[in-house]
Structures are given as structure tokens and as C-alpha cells.
């Protein structure tokens, strides 16, 4: 809000206080729409979700309106289930794996596009394709590509004699999580390329020219010019990537539904299944709250980094 006291030029003290009070009221009036919006669409769901996590909220609640308070029971029943360990581990592996893959490949592609070559603009916009595709459609196509018996990936690998038997990409509990990560990396690359590439555009060309005179080209130029200049962007990309990846549901549900044998079950899919398949809304909310806290930690980190970036 940029309302300043500049207009309050009354001479008498009472008038001045009145003017100030009016101004304050006007300030709040301007704030009101935003406040209502935030309370209604961000505050309410979050508070509701936090409360639901401690309630026995079931289908009956919708009719009777009563959801008995159960304290931490939903949390302890999830944390003590044999699924909890798998879920946490899968979430961590999925997030770290996806981010590592997306970022490395994204950075490599962004560096590649720094050089201008014919059709580079067109190619760069084509790279956005995975991002533009509806996720459920993307997942369905990948499911076919990765099919063990008639998938195009296995038949290619078999024809090239790279493997001897077809690979159970999605049907083996040992492989499924990695296959899901591969697909998620494919989806996340455009986001990483776009941000990193635009970050690179901000690095003045003169820096490279000056460095080249001193003999810093190639890897050295990357290490001493690109990387330091890109660091703030890199942090933002990584932190946002973690938040986006933690809450991925559709890809996993579309590819494996959390299976086989819970091999690809993450916090997000568990929360989804508790709430919308088993209709144990309290339990689902509890799992979701755990996920929310983890995301909030990273969101806080993002805000701090972002402030530092804008300060610089």
C-alpha cells in the first residue's frame, strides 16, 4: 500500500488525528479485498485441513455434521502403519531423484541454447511441450511406452539387443519408482530450462569477453562466470522444484496408482487415496498436513532466498 500522509495538511491537531484515522480506514478498505481473498481461499482451507487432521471425518460427517475430535490419533495411526516408512522413503527418493534429473538436464540444455544457431528459437519453444500437455494424457502415453509386453521402449531395446528380456519398467516394485522419476524428470525439464535460460540472458556478454582474454573459456567460464551469476536463480529453481515435486499426484496415479505393492506410494498419493478413495477424510488430512509442513519448510527457505536475491 502506498498511501502516504502527504495529503494530511490540516493545521489543527484534532483535524489531523481525524484525517489520520480516515486515512487508516481507507488503508484498510484498500486492503480488504485482498484480505478477504486470502482468508477465504488460503486461510480457510488450511485451517480446515489442520482441524480435519484431528477429527474422525468420514462420509457420515457430511450428513450429520459431527466429526468427533480424535487429537493425534490420525497421525499416530499413519505413522505407526507399515506404509509410513515406505511412503517417506519413496517421497524422498522421488523428490531428490526428480530434482537431480530435471536440474542437471535442464541446465545442460539451457547452456546449449546460449549459443545461437539456426532454429534454436523454435527448438526452445518445442521444449515446452511436456509442460503444455495435460499430465493425465502424458501419463497415459508413458504407460504405453513403458509397458512390459508391448511397450515401444522394450521392443526398441530388444531389437537393438541392449537387453535380453523385456524390462518390467512399471510392473516390478524394484523398478517402478525409477520409471516414475524418469517421467517426472521429462515433465520438469521445461521449467528448469526456461528459468535457467532466462537467468543466463541476464549475464552481460562482456564478462565472457573479458574472461576469454584472460584465458577462461569453456568449463572455466562456466565455473567462474555463469555459475556464480546464476546461483540465486539456481536456488529458486531448486526450492520451487522441491515444492512442486513433493505434491505430485497425477503422474504417479496415472502411471502406477501408487503400486505395484506400494512401491510408488508417496505422501501425496497416500493422502489422496485416504481422502478420495477410502473417504477417510480425517486420515487423509493428517497425511496432507505432514506434507504441508514439509512443503512449508521449503517455502520458508524460498522466501528467504528470494528476499536475498531481490536485495542483491
Amino acid at each position, binding site marked *: 500500500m502506498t498511501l502516504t500522509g502527504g495529503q494530511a495538511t490540516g493545521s489543527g491537531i484534532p483535524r489531523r488525528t481525524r484525517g489520520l484515522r480516515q486515512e487508516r480506514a481507507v488503508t484498510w478498505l484498500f486492503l480488504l479485498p485482498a484480505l478477504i481473498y486470502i482468508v477465504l481461499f488460503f486461510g480457510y482451507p488450511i485451517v480446515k485441513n489442520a482441524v480435519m487432521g484431528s477429527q474422525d471425518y468420514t*462420509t457420515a460427517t*457430511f450428513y450429520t455434521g459431527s466429526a468427533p475430535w480424535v487429537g493425534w490419533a490420525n497421525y499416530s495411526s499413519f505413522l505407526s502403519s507399515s506404509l509410513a516408512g515406505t511412503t517417506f522413503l519413496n517421497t524422498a527418493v522421488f523428490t531428490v531423484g526428480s530434482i537431480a534429473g530435471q536440474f542437471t538436464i535442464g541446465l545442460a540444455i539451457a547452456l546449449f541454447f546460449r549459443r545461437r544457431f539456426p532454429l534454436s528459437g523454435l527448438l526452445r519453444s518445442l521444449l515446452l511441450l511436456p509442460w503444455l500437455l495435460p499430465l*493425465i494424457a502424458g*501419463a497415459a502415453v508413458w504407460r504405453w511406452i513403458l509397458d512390459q*509386453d508391448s511397450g515401444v521402449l522394450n521392443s526398441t531395446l530388444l531389437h537393438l539387443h541392449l537387453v535380453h528380456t523385456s524390462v518390467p519398467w512399471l510392473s516390478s*516394485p524394484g523398478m517402478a519408482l525409477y520409471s516414475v522419476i524418469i517421467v517426472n524428470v521429462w515433465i520438469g525439464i521445461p521449467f528448469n530450462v526456461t528459468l535457467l535460460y532466462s537467468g543466463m540472458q541476464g549475464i552481460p556478454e562482456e564478462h565472457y569477453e573479458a574472461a576469454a582474454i584472460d584465458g577462461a573459456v569453456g568449463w572455466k567460464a562456466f565455473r567462474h562466470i555463469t555459475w556464480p551469476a546464476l546461483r540465486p536463480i539456481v536456488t529458486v529453481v531448486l526450492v520451487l522444484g522441491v515444492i512442486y515435486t513433493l505434491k505430485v499426484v497425477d503422474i504417479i496415479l496415472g502411471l502406477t496408482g501408487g*503400486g505395484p*505393492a506400494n512401491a510408488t506410494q508417496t505422501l501425496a498419493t497416500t493422502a*489422496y487415496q485416504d481422502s478420495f478413495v477410502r473417504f477417510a477424510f480425517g486420515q487423509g488430512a493428517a497425511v496432507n498436513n505432514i506434507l504441508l509442513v514439509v512443503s512449508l519448510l521449503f517455502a520458508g527457505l524460498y522466501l528467504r532466498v528470494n528476499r536475498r536475491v531481490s536485495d542483491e
Partner: protein
Amino acid sequence: MNRQGSRSTRVLVAAATCAALALALAGCSGSSSGSGTSATTGLNLTIEDYYSQPAAAAYDTIYSACAKQLGDTVTISHIAGAALIPKVLQQVSSRTMPDVLMLDNPDVDQIAATGALSPLSDYGITGAGYIPGIIAAGSYQGKLYGLAPAVNSLALFYNVDMFKAAGLTPPTTWAELQADAKVLTKPGRYGFAFSGVNTYEGTWQFMPWMWTNAGDEKNIDTPQTAQALQLLTSMVQDGSASKSVVLWTQADVESQFAAGKAAMMENGPWNIALLQGVSGLHWASVPLPTPQAGQKSVSPLGGETYTVPQAGDSAKMAAAGKMVACINSDANQVAISKAVAYVPAKISVAEQFAKTNPLLAPYVTVVQTARSRTGELGNGWDTAATAIYTAEQLALTGKDSPAAALKQAQGQ
């Protein structure tokens, strides 16, 4: 089980959005019901179901004919598959339920338990002469809440040409099934296909094996259930069934069979129309094999029931009761069965129906001994069903032996 089960992925997002809205905006309903033209003749009744085309058109005809007969009008809404229950819950909380609500039979207990449905006995509907399984499925705590005009179940489809070429007849026992599946497995083709997916759909497909062998959902950690799971696991392990069965929905199973990539499949009659459209495919269906010769196969009962929600308006509820009775009339049971390849839910009607519809005749036999999923555990079925598919996935992927998998899942 429902035909739309396979479509669940596609409507996941819709369901999630819908349910999220239901939670946040419990007071606002998207339904535009109630604007009836009650001034002139009868009432305007709202009907909600989850059918999609072409089935939806067949049901629309029946609803409209019933309304005309009763002097009412109808407003029909079709809510895609998995989005129906979240939508219903939203309507339950905002008291804007339709006058007639279709529910898949295993969902009746859950919605009845909320108190949102009225017993059908209020409208003089008793369900006399119906297949016992479907009455059990539509009842909650001894009262009938939902009545299905037509039902379905699972049977064994087999590729006639492949059986002829191998000189085999359809299997009647588990041992024959295993042996035949092995013989019929060739490069690029599996002997047997079923769905072992990690949803209630996978559980539904496992029930015939478990129930026929005297397994019970109350406790799945028994030798009988382990034997049933061992049967499916062995077929996956010896290569007569694909390892991908842990991902396949029933629709995937159907496309494998239709493409000639499976010689036999476990599936339901709703596939008949699809299979008839595949040129060059010769198939037939028989009841699923049993552990020993001469036993009766116990398959799960599928089918959608019609219920009358507590609308608060007794005149409308009485009219809705008449509507449910009309949808369940003998003539409509036959009409629905013909349109969507189900079996009439009344035994006498079904037996008559079998004579004129030979393709559905095996199902008329199957449904008479079929069992309701929620009959024993009521709204505790979901927990048991989750344990069952969890155990099945552990065993089929080779992470655990069938016995150990069932023990672990039962303990959860």
C-alpha cells in the same frame, strides 16, 4: 463393480476438484434442481447416475418412460464414474440430493450409514423374488435401501479358435485352468489374463477365487485364501499370465483378450458388446473354474442400485419411490439387461431371459450363487478390500509368498 471403473484415472482430477469443492463450499451446490413444473401435472424428479454413453441413452429412455407413466417429469444428470461419490457427499452436506440416486451396490452401505437414504420399505418395495446377493448388497442393518434392476458378475471368456487349435475344452477346475493357460501361452501371447490392480477393481477380480475356495473377508490370513492367491501367483510366475497384471484394469484385460494377446480372461458381461465388435474374434464364456470339479463358483455380484435420498419433501419422496419401483419393473429389468448386457435381478425374469439371450446365459447361472461384497462386513468392506488388493500385489510381484502377504495385509 462398474463399467466405469477403468475410467477412474481420467476422472481423478475431476473427482479431486469436485471433492475439494465439496469440502470448501459445502453450502453451495452446483445442482440446479427444484425448478420443476409442478404447477401443471406431476412433479419434477431429479435422477443422478454415473453412466456414460451409450449406456446413458438407454437409461434415459427408461427414466423418461417411467416418469411419463407416473405423470411426472425428470431431470437427469450423469456424473462420470469416480466423481459420483464425491458429488453425492457434497449434496449430502448441502441437503441438495437428487430425488432418485443411483449407487454402485458396494457404496450403498457407506451412504446409508450417513443416514441420508430412506428405507425402500417406506414405498412398499420389498425386493421379493430377487437374487439374494443383490438384496444383501442393497441392505444396511437389515433394511433395504437400494434395489438394482439388473446385475452382473465375473466369468471366464475364452478364445474359441485358440482352444480348438490346441485341442482343449474350457477348463472347469483350477488345475485345468493352470494347465490350459500354460499350453496356450505362446510368444507374444499369454494363456490367461486378469486384473490384479491396486484398487477395489483388483479386489473384485480376486473374490471368485477366494470365495469359491471358502476364503472369507473377515480374516484373509487363512490357508483357503492363500491357496486362491497361490493359484494366481503361480500363473504369473510361470509366465502363463503377464507380470503387468498388477497394473491392468479390467478394460486393459479386455483389450489384451480382444487383441489376441490372451487366450482366456476373467471379466464381466459388459464387455460383450465390445468383443462382438472385434472382427475375426471368436469367443465364448463359461463360469469361472472351481478348485474341484462339480463345485459352484462363487463370484462377486455387481450392479447399480437405485435409492431414495432423504429429501425432506414427503410427496416428492413418495414419487421417487414409485420411480424406483418402475425402474425395477420386470419389463425394465429386461430392457436394461439387453441394453448393457446385464442379467435381470429377479430370478424368474432372469431365467426367462436366459432362454432368449444365450450369450448372457452363463451369467444367469453365475449371479444366482454370486455374493455381495458388503453383505458380511457392511461399511467395513473398504478396509478388507484394501487389505486384499495390498496382499495380492505383494504376492503377484513376488515380494512375499501368498501366505506371508495375506498375514501382513491382515495385520495392517
